[in-house]
């Protein structure tokens, strides 16, 4: 059982990284400022939302949606929107500095495709409660990893000589392409033999 959980975790973190392999969570990935600390904190906020979403999705799926599977999308998105609202209120009261630092990115977590995708994948793969949480941890961790790597690389290249047309979005895509290529090296990590 623990071997399987590890496979789920590492799979979501590295092998099928949500951002670099599945193309999820790209809005924050390309939009996030080239500040390592902000990227890291945003990643953590996403992890938190993902964990709650995973829990809620499992609960909904197990108790409610067996009777009405066609309502899945609507209920998931409502849950996500509510979770983000809740996290916003929580941060405003408990950590106002962090709340201000994250700014507009916090409500945008709602439209982060990675969160919804997490819930949908978890359901289509039939993960149980624990597997779902581990999956959320790995997926969120992978997202954070990608965010941090991108922010770090952009910080580094800020002072480099880059042609003006390339600067900004186009260059971010090239960096992302190279990162994605590098992460492809993780494929086959768990298939082994036999």
């Amino acid at each position, binding site marked *: 059982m623990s071997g399987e959980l590890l*496979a789920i975790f590492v799979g979501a973190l590295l*092998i*099928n990284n949500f951002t670099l392999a*599945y193309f999820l969570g790209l809005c924050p990935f390309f939009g996030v400022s080239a500040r390592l600390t902000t990227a890291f904190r945003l990643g953590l906020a996403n992890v938190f939302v993902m964990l709650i979403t995973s829990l809620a999705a499992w609960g909904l799926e197990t108790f409610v949606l*067996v009777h009405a*599977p*066609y*309502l*899945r*999308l*609507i209920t998931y998105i409502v849950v996500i929107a509510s979770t983000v609202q809740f996290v916003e209120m929580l941060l405003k009261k408990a950590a106002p500095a962090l709340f201000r630092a994250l700014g507009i990115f916090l409500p945008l977590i709602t439209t982060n495709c990675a969160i919804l*995708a997490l819930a*949908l*994948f978890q*359901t*289509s*793969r039939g993960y149980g409660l624990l597997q779902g949480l581990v999956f959320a941890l790995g997926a969120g961790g992978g997202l954070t990893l990608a965010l941090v790597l991108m922010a770090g690389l952009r910080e580094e290249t800020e002072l480099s000589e880059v042609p003006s047309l390339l600067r900004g979005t186009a260059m971010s895509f090239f960096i992302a392409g190279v990162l994605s290529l590098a992460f492809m090296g993780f*494929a*086959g990590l*768990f*298939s082994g*033999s*036999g």
Partner: protein
Amino acid sequence: MRLPETARLVLTLGIAGTLSGVTIVSTYRLTLPRIQANQAAALERAVLEVLPGGTSMQRLVWGEHGLAPAATGAEGGDSVYGGYDAAGGFVGYAIPAAGAGFQDTIRLIYGYDPGRRRIVGMEVLESRETPGLGDRIFKDPEFVAEFRDLAVEPRVALVKGHGEGPNEVDAITGATISSQAVVRILGQANEAWLPRLPPAAEAPPLPPPQERRPVHPGGERGGPVPGGRAGEGR
């Protein structure tokens, strides 16, 4: 008449939610028969593909009394499919299986003839293997043809280069892990199912056409669901 603020908010959301719910349920009802027909057709095509000579099939669920034709709306359960030829004679079992491939999960179905104890066909239903390499597990006709007459004793084995034995499958050059995954998935499914499957003479027969139960391919999860069920895209 100005309603109090909160009442307006709640009313708006309530109306929106209700309208949304009604729309979704109506669309669901409208598309359900077609979607189920699609799924059933796809499944039947795959089953008949891996059981050459088969022209019809039925779902068989493993229960406490052994293999039995699936009752309508059967809840989950391990199931295989029985294939029958035009005369109603038993052709073989089509066994669905899944497991980890190189990149992600591979789902496949394979045909098994209990009389000759051989695998007679294999079709990959879903995979996300590397295009050009791993995806040759379904694109390479030679690899797929290996499963047309494959012995299961002592067990299906993968060899590099050219295998001689009736139970050996040649690995695809450059896609060893994907090939190995297919063989491993077959082996695990064999371990689970071969002891359970009655021989040809005792296989559940096909009921006459008027008594045939409708096939519900997804079991308890048949029908449309937003986001689909089949895959996560490429």
